[in-house]
């Protein structure tokens, strides 16, 4: 292995303007409409004569489609028409596959063609005058199936005699790759002890945004253009999936969003349904509307990656110094690769977690199973890997008789080592994990733990404390996709903003992003107001995304913890351009004073030494837009500025799987205190702290809100939420009865804390944030394992720990104990 290093981005000199609005928790601009029910969500968009789509879905996990008879449905008055997989296959090409073979051989269409591969897969679409009629008519579509054996366990899917989902791929293997950095042999030779963990399992769930997916699609026959009102959160990705499949240019796919009812990554891969909407709106010559039902979402949309970690070995010194690990990650992609196999590389953004180990080998294998397709879910792929590293830390600590807090502190990457290059060439930009841990421990009263344990024991309860350390890597270098498939021509990242000064002095900002509650209108206005020296209230940020505005680029959207970097840097760039243009205009109008002698303040451009000599923004806007005769010919001022922010990235080294995969590394350290009732396995979180570091905070309240939301989702996932399937591939949790998300009564007490380690690589010192890496899952698992010490010493081997599993860990600790072994090296 070569020792050459990544070229870290040059630190950005932060020339902050006099900050007035940034750093303040100003009232969100979005709130006025959203608290009055005046938001416009996708299901609120209506058109004259529109038809409602309902999908006929597979009741089988795996079956051949023998025949489809839709005549009874089509005969009903008010049914406008239908679409089948056969028609889709004739009108479109299969979606482009990101994978190399064998995953590359998948033929994925917008509707099932010839065969169904999971319960809930869409087979036929029916359009009718009302949603009720569309649903009724769907019942009359007769689909004859020939059931096949299903496979729902990734481990079984690998076996030679397993049912095969995709015949052209030859087996259920979709993608595999070996990642190795450092010198594993040396690390294991040097180690005092080797901790072996046979199997760990990260379960399947997702963030279940309260608003399901949807679209209203209109087709313009004259121009051949579709207007797609939707809540898809990554239009750039949807477009490049849809355009080639539909044999159309991207200019024909106009995406419009306004308010989106939560996304969390789960609204990235709705492109199959959007294709169905497009084809139907053209076929039926009328607008069509699709709103996903809750059960349809659970059955078919964007499950989080389920992952097994097998045959893990950890090289460790007696004092708890971690030298390296090797493991085999087996990832269950579900039935289709809709964003996968990107999960096979995204984890590598955080290869060593927050720890200093330098020698790592991970064999990644992704297989298909007869379950819903996986796609990004808050913390996408890093969450699984960080859960694994945190489990390893706690298991190593407990098995070696060490304190998990001490082992963490011993092995954390230190603040003096920042920027820190990981074994695979990622650069952790800044941070102080040990300090964050101290804050978290203080918040939960760590020093008093022994007394609390005794006190709980006196009440018959087992008390445990656990830490979850995570990274929220943000601003992707899409070049990492080449580690999956060297043929892919993606790299870098970008985001766009436009800022203009209009006739009456209106400052209008347009973003390429598709926010789902992150408050982009607010934070963008804060940045603009500080640079232009005007009031936050005078900045108007357009709500949502419209690809007609030319304010987007290939990677535009809202996903993967990046707005505070990509979005706000674009806003900053465009606003600085505008500020400079206002000054140049001011220079002309104010009699040729040098630009340097001017400043922007209080909505005026004025002479610094003579503030009375000032031109209001309103006059600037009016002159350029409507009263421009006589201006100098060479005055290149439009007062309408577009800026594309492009983060400083290189294409990673594909051979060595080495390079900087993300620009910023926000961090979270969580601490949980649980109390278990050993009689039943029931447990409660009695104290909880979440400490966040995302660099400079533009709006502290929004940051804290993201921390809280990510925590709540993690606690739900740790304790309750799981997409569970039976052996026949039936989803057992297809609605909010069976899939229990946290309710008001479930919430434990929460304390939040923060530190601010500015990123040296971003124009505002910010870091993307919001995903939180699932720190709550790690912390709850750690706390449970701590509580079980001395009560059978079970290790916590699964990310999902409902009461019944905790009861099992107490009743049969030997089963979990069998998964772990410590040997002297």
């Amino acid at each position: 292995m070569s020792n050459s290093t990544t070229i870290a981005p040059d630190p950005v000199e932060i020339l902050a303007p006099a900050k007035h609005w940034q750093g303040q928790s100003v009232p969100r601009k979005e709130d006025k409409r959203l608290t009055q029910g005046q938001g416009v969500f996708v299901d609120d968009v209506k058109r004259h004569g529109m038809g409602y789509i309902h999908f006929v879905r597979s009741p089988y996990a795996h079956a051949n489609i023998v025949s489809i008879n839709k005549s009874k449905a089509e005969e009903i008055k008010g049914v406008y028409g239908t679409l089948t997989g056969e028609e889709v296959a004739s009108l479109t090409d299969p979606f482009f596959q990101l994978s190399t073979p064998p995953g590359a051989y998948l033929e994925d269409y917008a509707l099932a063609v010839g065969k169904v591969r999971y319960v809930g897969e869409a087979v036929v679409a029916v359009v009718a005058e009302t949603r009720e009629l569309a649903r009724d008519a769907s019942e009359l579509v007769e689909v004859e199936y020939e059931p096949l054996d299903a496979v729902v366990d990734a481990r079984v899917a690998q076996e030679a005699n397993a049912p095969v989902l995709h015949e052209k791929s030859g087996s259920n293997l979709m993608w595999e790759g070996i990642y190795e950095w450092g010198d594993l042999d040396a690390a294991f030779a040097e180690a005092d002890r080797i901790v072996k963990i046979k199997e760990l399992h990260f379960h399947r769930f997702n963030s279940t945004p309260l608003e399901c997916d949807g679209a209203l699609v209109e087709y313009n026959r004259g121009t051949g253009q579709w207007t797609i009102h939707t809540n898809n959160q990554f239009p750039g990705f949807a477009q490049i999936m849809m355009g080639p499949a539909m044999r159309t240019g991207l200019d024909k796919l106009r995406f419009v969003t306004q308010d989106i009812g939560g996304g969390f990554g789960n609204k990235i891969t709705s492109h199959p349904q959007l294709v169905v909407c497009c084809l139907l709106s053209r076929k039926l010559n009328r607008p069509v509307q699709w709103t996903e039902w809750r059960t349809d979402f659970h059955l078919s949309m964007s499950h989080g990656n389920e992952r097994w970690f097998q045959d893990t070995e950890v090289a460790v010194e007696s004092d708890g110094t971690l030298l390296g690990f090797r493991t085999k990650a087996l990832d269950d992609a579900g039935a289709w690769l809709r964003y996968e196999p990107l999960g096979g590389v995204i984890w590598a953004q955080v290869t060593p977690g927050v720890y200093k180990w330098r020698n790592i080998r991970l064999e990644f294998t992704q297989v298909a199973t007869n379950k819903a397709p996986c796609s990004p879910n808050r913390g996408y792929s890093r969450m699984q890997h960080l859960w694994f590293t945190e489990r390893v830390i706690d298991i190593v600590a407990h098995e070696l008789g060490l304190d998990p807090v001490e082992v963490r502190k011993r092995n954390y990457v230190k603040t003096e080592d920042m920027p820190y290059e990981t074994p695979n060439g990622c650069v952790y930009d800044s941070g102080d994990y040990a300090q964050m841990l101290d804050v978290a421990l203080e918040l939960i009263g760590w020093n008093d733990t022994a007394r609390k344990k005794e006190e709980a024991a006196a009440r018959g309860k087992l008390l445990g404390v656990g830490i979850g350390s995570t990274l929220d890597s943000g601003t992707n270098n899409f070049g990492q996709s080449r580690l999956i498939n060297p043929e892919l021509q993606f790299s870098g990242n970008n985001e766009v903003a436009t800022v203009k000064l209009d006739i009456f002095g209106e400052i209008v900002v347009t973003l390429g992003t598709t926010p789902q509650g992150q408050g982009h209108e607010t934070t963008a206005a804060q940045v603009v107001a500080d640079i232009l020296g005007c009031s936050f209230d005078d900045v108007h940020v357009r709500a949502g995304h419209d690809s007609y505005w030319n304010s987007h680029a290939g990677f535009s959207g809202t996903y993967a913890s990046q707005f505070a970097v990509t979005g706000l840097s674009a806003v900053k760039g465009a606003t600085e351009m505008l500020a400079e243009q206002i000054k140049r205009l001011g220079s002309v109008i104010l009699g040729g004073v040098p630009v340097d002698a001017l400043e922007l303040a209080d909505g005026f451009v004025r002479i610094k030494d003579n503030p009375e000599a000032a031109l209001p923004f309103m006059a600037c806007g009016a002159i350029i837009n409507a009263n421009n005769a006589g201006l100098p010919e060479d005055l290149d001022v439009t007062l309408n500025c577009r800026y594309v922010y492009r983060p400083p990235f290189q294409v990673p080294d594909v051979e060595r799987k080495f390079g900087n995969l993300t620009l910023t590394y926000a961090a979270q350290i969580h601490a949980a205190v649980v109390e278990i009732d050993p009689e039943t396995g029931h447990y409660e979180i009695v104290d909880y702290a979440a400490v966040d570091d995302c660099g400079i905070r533009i709006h502290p309240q929004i940051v804290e809100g993201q921390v809280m939301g990510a925590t709540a989702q993690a606690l739900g996932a740790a304790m309750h939420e799981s997409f569970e399937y039976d052996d026949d591939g039936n989803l057992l949790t297809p609605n909010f009865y069976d899939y229990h998300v946290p309710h008001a009564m479930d919430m434990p007490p929460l304390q939040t804390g923060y530190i601010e380690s500015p990123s040296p690589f971003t124009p505002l010192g910010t870091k993307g944030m919001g995903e939180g890496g699932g720190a709550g899952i790690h912390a709850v698992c750690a706390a449970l394992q701590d509580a079980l010490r001395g009560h059978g010493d079970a290790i916590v081997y699964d990310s999902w720990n409902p009461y019944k599993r905790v009861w099992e860990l107490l009743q049969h600790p030997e089963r979990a104990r069998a998964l772990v072994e410590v040997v002297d090296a």
Partner: protein
Amino acid sequence: MDITVTVNGVEYEREVEARKLLIHFVRDDLDLTGSHIGCDTGNCGACTMIVNGQLVKSCMLLAVQADGATIETVEGLAEDGELTALQQAFSDHHALQCGYCTPGMLMSATALLRASPSPSDEQIRKALQGNICRCTGYWNIFEAVRAAAK
């Protein structure tokens, strides 16, 4: 069937299919889209309204059952664009992110504060138990309701 309802003080007379849910009637026929749909099973509370003074998940009621009813929805809370104390508290305390659950949440909290102007923390949690929020983790919502309470 013909039904008459009064929503936020306005009387509407409409012909409605017997099977149509109240939430679909209000959203699609009356074009009052502030109330939302998040689950179809009565779990999430995004469609919560006050019907004849009683808190109701409007996906659990047929439109025809509301014939003659007086209905309050989120659109009726603010008067002339002036936010109620509760709405303002939601904004002040960042009790909403995406805003999708917010209309139902506001209706549940409004009903609570009418019945118990100074609720205990436990009462607040119980009152919001039927409303799912996936963005906030509820903590800031509790804060907002506390702040709006007398």
